[in-house]
């Protein structure tokens, strides 16, 4: 079947889901699964080599003809959207049920279908006006999904912040598309690389799409929105929604001319975002916020790859730029896989324990072995450790950057700092996820409720297993995924079509497979050896202390304290300490929090100043008529003076 009918099925399924979702959860799930499978197949046909699909409606909608296009770039992102859209729906079938959330479950299903449909429309629209409409619907449905649980105050605050930030981005995009339309005389979009006069528009696109992609420092809305949304929504927000911003950047940096500095700026933003994003993540005590900041980091890594590809100016046909772009795109897929997996596992923990505070958890591996194992897999993947998929895409980006350095061109000055930053980012990610995994799942339960947690059921575990399988598949057979990546790279810049995978890419799969097998074998052999020689269970040694308690364990704050101290200049951690005093101390308190510095220390003060100025201006407006007449008289007098003295000169 070709892409057209499949896309029709997908759209029909999602549209029916919007209508049916409220009342009929099972039918909705079936419809969503059918629709997303159809979407995945449609994307697959294009990625596996079918020519790009285009369709014009012949009738007008909102004054413009529908023009849909599914090419390498959009189908690459459509595949990710379909996968997470389907899996998230299945996950929510157990996670956000009518029994637990009678008020919001139906709404949640409806908006889920709307979100997936509108993101699909964003990917397919090839008309600026329809792109904007779809983009707006996408923002609105995200907002309603984030605020599903709107009884809680911080959820409403997060939703509002998302809405405001999102609309600032949309404003930039309005200007962007309107300027393109004004310049070319049509809203139609397509390759328009020949007109250097429109190059400056890239900055508008960078602001608008970068905000959605969570590029540092435009990420201010992201941590609270992703942390406060229901976990299946967090998964699609982190896994797919922020990739829509990336899609916009990739799409329009491919279709439009870009200014010479574009690559350097994107790469610089990416490097800053990668390092600072993960530093913020390390400082968090809320595991969903931690995952959200890790998304900022990963979008930074992707931006490094994209920036490197842009640095290689179009006439120069640099092989390393292809590798960097391929790595960035593959990392977008990988991040979609493992971050959704991590958010699903986080949701599973939240479902079982009811808290997002890491330092109230602990020892969950015993009651939730599946969740613990799957979180561990996701953690190893997100740290880009071999033998999992994160390493494959970061390896591509690294090789691209190293090749840029060894080519001794001017791009090396961008690539060298980027490599060092990537290295430090990797080490910080390791610290962050060793902390998250260990504090949540290892040691002793820190509260009673946690000790009685329960494992999640098949509808939540199934999607997690599928995502884990996806991570393993990309890790062990990276070559199988190369054609799809190459297709997207070719669609981005036609001169790069049919790029061959680097020779070493082929050896990565077997090496990773060998490593995985060796690891499993040695681990099992060691376990057997231990059992053979006899195993005795005893208290944790703890230097001979006979009565260790769960509260004596290392906490999330203490684990991250050392490295977050080095980033104190930007993290600005807040500490409240009330020491125990006197012979009979009453209460003592130690609180630690890493604020969202850009938001709380920059945006909020700036906003405060604007509000103060507005408040001062409002004093002029008090409702007393005689003063208003006085204003008019003063105004007239001023005008009269202007006219008089103006004419005298």
């Amino acid at each position, binding site marked *: 079947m070709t892409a057209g009918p499949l896309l029709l099925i997908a759209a029909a399924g999602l549209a029916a889901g919007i209508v049916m979702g409220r009342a009929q959860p099972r039918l909705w799930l079936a419809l969503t699964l059918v629709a997303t499978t159809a979407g995945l197949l449609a994307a697959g046909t294009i990625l596996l080599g079918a020519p790009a699909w285009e369709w014009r409606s012949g009738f007008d909608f909102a004054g413009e003809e529908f023009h849909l296009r599914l090419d390498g770039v959009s189908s690459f992102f459509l595949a990710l959207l379909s996968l997470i859209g389907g899996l998230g729906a299945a996950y929510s079938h157990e996670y956000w049920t009518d029994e637990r959330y009678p008020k919001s479950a139906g709404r949640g299903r409806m908006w889920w279908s709307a979100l997936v449909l509108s993101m699909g429309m964003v990917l397919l629209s090839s008309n600026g006006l329809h792109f904007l409409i779809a983009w707006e619907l996408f923002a609105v449905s995200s907002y309603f999904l984030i605020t599903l649980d709107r009884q809680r105050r911080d959820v409403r605050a997060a939703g509002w912040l998302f809405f405001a930030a999102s609309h600032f981005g949309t404003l930039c995009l309005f200007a962007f598309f309107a300027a393109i339309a004004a310049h070319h005389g049509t809203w139609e979009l397509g390759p328009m690389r020949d007109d250097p006069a429109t190059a400056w528009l890239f900055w508008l696109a960078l602001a608008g799409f970068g905000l959605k992609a969570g590029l540092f420092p435009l990420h201010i809305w992201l941590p609270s929105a992703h942390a406060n949304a229901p976990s299946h929504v967090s998964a699609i927000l982190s896994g797919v929604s922020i990739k829509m911003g990336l899609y916009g950047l990739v799409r329009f940096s491919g279709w439009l001319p870009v200014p010479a500095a574009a690559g350097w700026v994107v790469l610089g933003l990416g490097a800053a975002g990668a390092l600072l994003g993960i530093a913020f993540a390390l400082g968090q005590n809320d595991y969903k916020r931690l995952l959200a900041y890790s998304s900022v980091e990963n979008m930074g890594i992707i931006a490094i790859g994209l920036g490197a590809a842009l640095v290689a100016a179009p006439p120069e046909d640099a092989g390393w730029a292809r590798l960097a772009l391929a790595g960035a795109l593959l990392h977008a897929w990988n991040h979609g896989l493992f971050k959704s997996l991590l958010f699903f596992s986080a949701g599973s923990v939240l479902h079982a324990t009811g808290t997002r505070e890491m330092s109230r958890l602990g*020892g969950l591996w015993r009651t939730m072995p599946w969740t613990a194992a799957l979180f561990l897999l996701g953690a190893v993947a997100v740290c880009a450790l071999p033998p999992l998929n994160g390493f494959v895409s970061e390896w591509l980006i690294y090789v691209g950057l190293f090749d840029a350095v060894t080519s001794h061109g001017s791009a090396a000055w961008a690539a060298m700092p980027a490599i060092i930053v990537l290295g430090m980012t990797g080490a910080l990610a390791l610290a962050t996820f*060793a902390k998250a995994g260990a504090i949540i799942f290892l040691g002793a339960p820190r509260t009673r409720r946690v000790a009685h947690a329960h494992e999640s059921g098949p509808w939540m575990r199934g999607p997690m297993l599928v995502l884990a399988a996806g991570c393993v598949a990309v890790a062990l057979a990276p070559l199988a995924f190369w054609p799809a990546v190459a297709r997207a790279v070719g669609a981005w810049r036609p001169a790069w079509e049919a790029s061959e995978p680097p020779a070493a890419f082929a050896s990565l799969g077997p090496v990773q497979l060998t490593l995985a097998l060796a690891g499993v074998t040695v681990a099992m052999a060691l376990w057997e050896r231990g059992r053979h020689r006899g195993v005795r269970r005893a208290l944790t040694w703890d230097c001979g202390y006979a009565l260790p308690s769960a509260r004596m364990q290392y906490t999330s704050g203490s684990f991250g304290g050392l490295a977050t101290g080095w980033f104190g200049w930007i993290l600005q951690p807040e500490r409240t300490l009330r020491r125990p005093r006197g012979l009979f101390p009453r209460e003592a308190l130690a609180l630690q929090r890493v604020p969202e510095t850009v938001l709380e220390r920059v945006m909020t003060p700036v906003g405060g100043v604007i509000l103060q100025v507005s408040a001062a201006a409002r004093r002029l407006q008090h409702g007393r008529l005689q003063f208003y007449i006085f204003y008019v008289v003063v105004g007239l007098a001023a005008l009269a003076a202007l006219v008089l003295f103006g004419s005298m000169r």
Partner: protein
Amino acid sequence: MIAALEIILRLAGWLVLAPLLPGIINKVKAWVAGRRGPPVLQLYFDLARLWRKSVVLSTLASPGFVAGPAIAWVAIAGAALLLPLGPAGAVVGFRGDVLLLIYLLALARFGTAWAALETGSAFEGMGSAREVSYAVLAEAALITAVLSLSVHSGSITLETMLTPAAGPGAVLLAGGLFTVLLAENCRVPFDDPNTHLELTMIHEAMILDHSGPPLAVILHGAAVKLLLFAVLLTEAVLPVGAMPPLAGTGALLAGVLAVTVGVGVVESLLARLAFRRVPLLLTTAFLLCLFALLVAWKGGPA
């Protein structure tokens, strides 16, 4: 077939020779202090004894407590196999294998840190927090060193990168890499392998609860890691790969021995640094590697 045989032989060589190094270091320390010291083969005896012992597991530990050390050991052994051995070259080499080496070492770190955190002990939490935090700076220095080697050689394959060694920046690189070696292998002045005060330890604090075969695997992995860094440092400084076979092998062995003795001498003459000074020393290592990178950049491709 021959390739497989060579891989097995090399692996055996790495695994068998590695425990010599801590023995040599201890001998040097004893010699400087005027003691007789434990035999050079002491670690072999320890490993054999631990391998025969039974295991005490913390009641809190999950299977990851044993799997962590195993995976760390596999990662370190895999990283060692990637390294070329002087004139003999590498058995498994591909473009970009140097990144695999760095990330395998990171995987080993993840495995040990995870296993340490299994027990819920604050000491082990402290140890692994220090380990993963200092690694951030060590990793920056290491990747800068790799960058300078690849700029100098114009390659990102370990074998071709290490054949011409570092050239004019060798002294700077040697200083930087030696410091990274001390930090990554938890030697004085970053960590004291002999101390018995848990509050001041990094690596030893992480393995407090391990016993029997898993402890043997951890100690052996640490020895292989030390040998790996010694070989890497030697090959980064001396162009052993470009020498004739006999001279190259001799130079490699002499280099590794010199590094080992150097570690022992440093350990005898220096005290452990206060923890807040550790980042300063690691930053110095990073700067040394950065200057080596600039020298390599100015020198152009070899």
